[in-house]
């Protein structure tokens, strides 16, 4: 909404260029728009300017009989926010006065498009610069002219945001802004994840590391994926303290300010005839490649299985599940089956590959559709913007889909000259569906992880087959005899036996009013109400394996073999209800005044308040009948039951307890900047926050978070005469941002469960945290040094260096044992307090080169954008350092160690294989095979510190080519300076979990092999420590560095002005290709670090069309 007010572009293009050098103008306190029109009519010269306050605000008195543009600008420029002018189809950047510092492509916005201002971008855009617009950057509280900014702002505009195709916003930010890292990896469960953008590395250990998302004016409390990228006008990332400290305690991880598209008042009277645009895209992606998972061949697995069988490893059958081969061998041994028959069956199993079947039955090509319609209209007193979007994604996992509907309506009304009101409503609804598809990483609750390599999911006719997974055939036989319900698992039959659907909605209502007292002073009141919720409905039908397994494992058998069912037959329904309600209010006084020509003071002061309540409730119904909604409410959740013939007393699982979180925030803030002679800018901000997390005693002694900054626009100096460097600006800032951790509380806290160690069924309380009245905000001090420059007419860019020092971080601190903090006997008791600190520094570089500048629309244009970031952050102080090295093996776990990045790879020193194929490590100063001692006793200081498991250097290069109506661009990204641990064969997991690895084929098999392989000889399957040493040794750590071709966009525009037969103003066709794969990788194992041991996603192809009516 503010964009309407604050970002105003005036384009007056003379269709009959009749340039005259001079013009006359006699107006008194007239809007600039009027003066511009006078100038345009007389000279054909178009002024470009920005305004923070809309067209009415900029008023001037001009009394000139005959004046040239140049003289006019010299005389009046100090009063006017004019940035450039267009004359004879060329755009002139006004040098050394007010200089353009951000360059972005112009797009035609229908709301700006009115009858008197017929703007055609291409008329000048392609001839000179693609269009130069000074976009004031937004920090969520105010708009700041870029040339007066001292802080570090990363900015992307609509053109760049809509360059790519995706459902979510985070992926649109990726590879566009220096300092913002969107790392890719996989979760512990093997699900590919794109991490939440990290702004300039981590600044916290245990607190939420997500940047603060601000949508328009307020922090967004819903799921950020609710926001339709098509609704976004631009995105600003606040990277340093001067930019972000206005957000106080929530700015420690950087702030991503998202400005949506809004209704904008027009400067000319016009009817409310709407302008429409429509866009639509469909994205196809082939099914993912599960063969990317390293796996042992069925033949190898079976051979190893037989060898172990012969050595007596698979002892007398018990409850442990066995593979069909072992079952057959058992039957042969028992004389139940003939050897030759068994051998023939085993031979055929060697040709089976469960991955082939998983690929076929669990995955499919995905199709994502996106449709978006928007309408807007504006008059001088009222404007609206309406949009509706629909996303329909059929995921590559069979049975999964995602649907989203978004609707927005934004109005701006000028009630009277001083009073303007804005309202906005945004509604999102989405639904996520899934079925019983176990995917490639099926995890049994009973021990085995995944299917054995030759599991057969379907027979030759495609009929579902049962797989042995959780219980031995003998056990199933025994329970079958007792008339237990069917206990077999047929993965393919099970697909339809589960229906999961999660429906979420989010409603955002904004009201804002601004009352203008004088030109310099106005008061704003803003209020936002947000209510979001989600209802998860997870039905495991009576026929599903999940349900049958749970029911059967609780069946009790009495001495006369009668069965009783503690869990009643029927389906199992899990319900999740999540609800979020937030109120945010803000009262803000804005002041801005110009003195003389080039001095300006901008200041804001405000007060804001927020209340956020989120609740989560769970419910579980047993014996659920989907036909009539009935269920069994008499479940005994207290008694311990053992499964038949097993001794594992457990209680019937019940729904988790409900949870509620309440966040209350109060804040006061002040932000001011003064610009002297358009040369020097000084900025300062201070903010004080209070929250209910800390209790009143801490809040009463809060320390304000503050920042200060300086900017020097060197090229405005009189002495400055470097022509090839027409623009040069130096910035320096320092300040503090904050962060909040929920780990610690000012209150004594406890959790409760039912039943303790003894058989009592009392509620049992555990104290989880002690009252700590000294708790404080985490603080991140940031120093930033920036240089903005333009080299000739070709290159613009900025280079920034920053240093961060995060103190008072919430970390585990060893407590005096007398405090009673001990949780686990023998382990130090600890508590969370402001005890840790981190250091970080880095460089961000952004360059834009207009390598070829077409002189007319038919000429070839080539623009390159390059971004580079380097970021290093290390734990500087952490009190609860563990010395044992094995505590630091999980690179995905937060395990802070002084001097290391938070996510780091540490490994055991690798000394190769010996002449019997055993892995050799290093212990007590010499090579050793005492794997247990090595694993348990190697100190962290004696480990190999491989380095960060997150990229430390990253960026992208984007080339854009334009020719006539064609545009093509491609983006190349790079991520460097980090490591990953590649998986390999674990001989203990091979039969304990049935997870194998192709490295099995490379194993040491005979003396001499140690020279060619690092894979140990097949070992004792019970010796897991040997495997754990090998798997965590430095031999398997690889460099993750890689360069990747991210995407290619090709588009073609048709416009009515060229093709009068077109029924609309403009139509754009585009083709977007993404996930195009690696161009280079550092590792020699052929592993794409995005897909280390998970199915590799295929290339995506999007076809789309945008139409403007």
């Amino acid at each position, binding site marked *: 909404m503010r964009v309407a007010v604050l970002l105003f572009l005036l384009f007056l293009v003379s269709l009959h260029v009749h340039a005259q050098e001079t013009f006359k103008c006699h107006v008194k306190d007239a809007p600039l728009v009027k003066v511009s029109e006078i100038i345009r009519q007389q000279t054909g010269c178009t002024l470009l300017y920005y305004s923070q306050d809309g067209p009415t605000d900029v008023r001037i008195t001009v009394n000139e009989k005959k004046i040239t543009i140049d003289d006019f600008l010299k005389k009046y420029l100090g009063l006017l926010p004019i940035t450039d002018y267009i004359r004879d189809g060329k755009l002139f950047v006004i040098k050394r006065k007010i200089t353009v510092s951000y360059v972005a492509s112009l797009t035609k916005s229908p709301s700006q498009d009115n009858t008197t201002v017929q703007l055609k971008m291409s008329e000048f855009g392609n001839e000179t610069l693609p269009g130069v617009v000074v976009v004031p950057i937004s920090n969520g509280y105010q708009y700041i002219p870029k040339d007066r900014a001292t802080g570090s702002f990363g900015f992307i505009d609509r053109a760049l945001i809509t360059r790519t195709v995706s459902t979510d916003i985070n992926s649109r930010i990726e590879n566009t802004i220096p300092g913002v890292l969107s790392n890719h990896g996989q979760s512990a469960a093997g699900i590919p994840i794109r991490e939440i953008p990290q702004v300039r590395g981590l600044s916290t250990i245990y607190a939420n590391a997500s940047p603060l998302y601000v949508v328009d004016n307020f922090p967004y409390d819903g799921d950020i994926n609710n926001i339709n990228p098509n609704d976004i006008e631009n995105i600003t990332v606040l990277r340093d303290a001067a930019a972000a400290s206005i957000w106080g305690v929530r700015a420690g991880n950087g702030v991503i300010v998202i400005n949506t598209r809004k209704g904008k008042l027009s400067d000319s009277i016009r009817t409310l005839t709407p302008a429409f645009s429509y866009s639509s895209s469909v994205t196809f992606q082939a099914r993912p490649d599960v063969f990317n998972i390293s796996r042992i061949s069925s033949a190898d697995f079976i051979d190893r299985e037989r060898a172990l069988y012969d050595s007596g490893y698979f002892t007398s059958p018990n409850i442990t599940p066995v593979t069909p081969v072992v079952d057959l061998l058992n039957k042969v041994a028992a004389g139940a089956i003939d050897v030759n028959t068994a051998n023939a069956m085993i031979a055929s199993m060697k040709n089976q590959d469960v991955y082939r079947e998983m690929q076929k039955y669990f995955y499919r090509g995905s199709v994502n559709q996106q449709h978006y319609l928007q309408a807007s209209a504006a008059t001088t007193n009222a404007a609206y913007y309406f949009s509706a979007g629909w996303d329909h994604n059929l995921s590559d996992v069979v049975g999964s889909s995602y649907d989203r509907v978004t609707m927005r309506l934004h109005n701006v009304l000028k*009630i009277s000259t*001083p*009073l303007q009101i804005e309202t906005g409503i945004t509604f999102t609804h989405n639904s996520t569906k899934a079925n019983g598809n176990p995917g490639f990483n099926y995890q049994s609750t009973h021990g085995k992880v995944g299917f054995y390599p030759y599991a057969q999911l379907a027979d030759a006719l495609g009929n579902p087959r049962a797989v042995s997974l959780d219980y031995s055939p003998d056990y199933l036989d025994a329970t079958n005899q007792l008339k237990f319900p069917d206990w077999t698992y047929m993965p393919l039959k099970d697909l339809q036996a589960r229906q999961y659907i999660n429906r979420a909605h989010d409603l955002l209502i904004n009201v804002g*009013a601004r*009352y203008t007292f004088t030109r310099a002073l106005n008061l704003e*009141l803003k209020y936002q109400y947000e209510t979001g919720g989600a209802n998860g409905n997870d039905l495991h039908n009576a026929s599903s394996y999940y349900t049958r397994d749970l029911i059967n494992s609780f069946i009790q058998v009495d001495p006369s073999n009668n069965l009783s069912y503690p869990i009643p037959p029927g389906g199992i329904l899990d319900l999740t209800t999540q609800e979020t309600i937030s109120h945010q209010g803000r*009262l803000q006084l804005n002041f801005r005044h110009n003195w003389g020509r080039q001095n300006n003071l901008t200041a804001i002061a405000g007060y804001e*308040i927020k209340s956020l309540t989120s609740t989560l409730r769970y419910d579980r119904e047993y014996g659920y009948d989907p036909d009539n909604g009935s269920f069994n409410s008499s479940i005994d959740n207290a008694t311990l039951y053992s499964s038949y013939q097993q001794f594992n007393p457990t209680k019937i699982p019940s729904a988790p*307890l*409900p*949870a*509620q*979180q*309440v966040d*209350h925030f*109060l804040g006061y803030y002040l932000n001011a900047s003064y610009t002297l002679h358009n040369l020097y800018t000084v900025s300062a901000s201070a903010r004080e926050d*209070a929250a*209910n*997390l*800390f*209790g*009143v005693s801490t809040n009463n002694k809060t320390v304000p978070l503050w920042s200060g900054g300086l900017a020097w626009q060197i090229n405005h100096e009189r002495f400055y005469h470097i022509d090839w460097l027409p623009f040069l600006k130096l910035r320096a800032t320092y300040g503090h941002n904050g962060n909040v951790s*929920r780990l610690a*509380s000012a*209150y*004594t*806290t*406890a*959790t*409760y469960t039912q039943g*303790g160690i*003894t058989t*009592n069924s*009392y*509620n*049992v*309380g*555990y*104290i*989880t*945290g*002690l*009252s*700590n*009245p*000294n708790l404080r905000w985490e603080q991140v001090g940031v120093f930033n040094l920036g240089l903005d420059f333009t080299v000739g007419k070709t290159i613009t860019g900025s280079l920034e260096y920053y240093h961060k020092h995060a103190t008072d971080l919430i970390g585990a601190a*060893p*407590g*005096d*044992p*007398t*405090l*009673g*903090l*001990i949780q686990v*006997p*023998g*382990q*130090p008791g600890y*508590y969370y307090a402001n005890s840790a600190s981190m250091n970080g520094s880095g460089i961000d570089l952004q360059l834009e080169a207009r390598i070829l500048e077409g002189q007319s629309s038919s000429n070839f244009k080539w623009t390159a954008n390059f971004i580079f970031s380097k970021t290093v952050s290390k734990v500087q102080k952490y009190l609860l350092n563990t010395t044992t090295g094995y505590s630091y093996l999980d690179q995905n776990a937060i395990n802070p160690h002084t001097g290391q990045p938070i996510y780091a790879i540490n490994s055991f020193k690798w000394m190769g294989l010996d002449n019997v194929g055993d892995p050799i490590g290093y212990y007590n100063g010499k090579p050793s095979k005492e794997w247990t001692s090595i694993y348990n006793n190697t100190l962290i200081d004696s480990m190999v510190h491989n380095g960060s498991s997150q990229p430390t250097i990253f960026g992208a290069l984007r080339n854009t080519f334009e020719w006539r109506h064609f545009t093509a661009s491609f983006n190349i990204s790079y991520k460097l300076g980090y490591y990953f641990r590649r998986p390999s064969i674990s001989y203990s997991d091979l039969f304990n979990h049935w997870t194998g690895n192709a490295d099995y084929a490379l194993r040491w098999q005979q003396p001499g092999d140690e020279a060619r392989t690092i894979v140990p000889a097949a070992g004792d399957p019970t010796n897991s420590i040997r495997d754990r040493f090998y798997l965590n040794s430095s031999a398997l750590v690889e460099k993750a560095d890689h360069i990747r071709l991210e995407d290619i966009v090709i588009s073609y525009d048709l416009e009515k002005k060229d093709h009068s037969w077109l029924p609309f103003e403009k139509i754009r066709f585009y083709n977007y290709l993404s996930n195009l794969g690696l161009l280079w990788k550092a590792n020699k194992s052929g592993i794409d670090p995005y897909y280390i041991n998970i199915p590799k996603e295929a290339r995506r192809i999007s076809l789309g069309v945008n139409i403007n009516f």
Partner: protein
Amino acid sequence: MHTRHLLYTILLPTALIAACKKSTFLDAKPDSSITIPTSIADCQALMDNDNVMNGYGAGYPSLGETGSDDYFVNSGFYGQYTLTDQNAVIWAADTYTDPEVNDWDLPYRTVLYSNVALKALGNIHPSADDQDSFNLAQGSAFFFRGFAYFQLAQIFTRPYADGDTDPLGLPLRKTTDINEKFTRSSLDSTYKQIIDDLSASIPLLPNTSSAITRPSKAAAYAMLTRVYLSMRKYPTALLYADSSLQIRNELMDYNTVVPAGALPFTRSNPEVIFGAAMYRTGPCFIGRSFTDSLLLASYQPSDLRRDYFFSRGRFIGVYDEDGYAFCGLATDEIYLTRAECYARTGNINNAMNDLDSLMIKRMSTGTFTPYTATDANDALQQVLQERRKELLYRGLRWTDLRRLNMDASTATTLTRTVAGTIYTLSPNSTRYVYYIPQNVINLNANMQQNPTR
């Protein structure tokens, strides 16, 4: 509408928001899943945490038992002990090899839980309907705190003597604040705190409890008698033993005991007044030590305890079904304590009667002969002998040794042979007092360490 009116309409709610009371707004409870203990039920749940309050799965100090003479070890068992336990077995000067000392850490956790409950309950004004549950929670908190401090005192302070002005008592935790710093109270204050806590619990607790994990009046009396006995205040100990036995006096007849499983007794057998367990380490790991040979030889063949208490020379007679070393309160202990107090106060008949009441339940049917004593000292010696034979592996022997050593006539020099080396512990040695963990000394500027061992 006038613009001015509209402006006021906008400003009014803002003024209201701004005026809403800041402290109330900022005092809202941030998270329901981490409940701040405030209600009686919350506090009772803390008290019902049998892991923390009764030591099941965690445990009360075991260093006393490890230092006592109930057991001996061969090199096999010794090798299985932790280094700290190995040091305690041989009464080494420095005991701890690990910065964390469970014997200190775990009871202080019990103290914390009690303090949290007491603080929360202090803010509650119960209705008439809630009075009973309020009393149970508050009485339990007092009881557990007294119980835990007593366990600590047996390990980390010297035995109590009348008129002792020893300044090296326990640090007494008063708050729940994480920033609290500690100094040691005097020994006198420590015992006063223990007695005050236990006494405070008496009017609040019900006579008997619904579960052995919950304290009762019987348990509070029984605990007070244990405390006064350790302080050698025999007349007072007698009174409390008597009070306890008036509520709970049942003894199991071992002739009718049907072993429940591998271990003969159940956790809630009729003698248990209050259940608690020591940390399962060293000899308190049941089955990982041999019972002292002389002690084992002292049981008559017709003594059923020989069969129920021991298996292949190892003690299995814990009043617990999961093999935790029992350090709670049971009626047999109270009978023996009362018998001792009778003997020490010259009431030979009553002393012998109490001994008879107990021993008739321990001997096989038909083999029991009533006890007689020639004089008070003879009575005392007999009671002490039976006490030794009845109350094994209950953490009581250490306390008994400490107090009995203060009287030359009942003092004992302990010896133990480990790997061919003979170790001795002379009566009243400073090694009867373990060091306070170095961690605690380091973190508290004014914390004084115990005398050099």
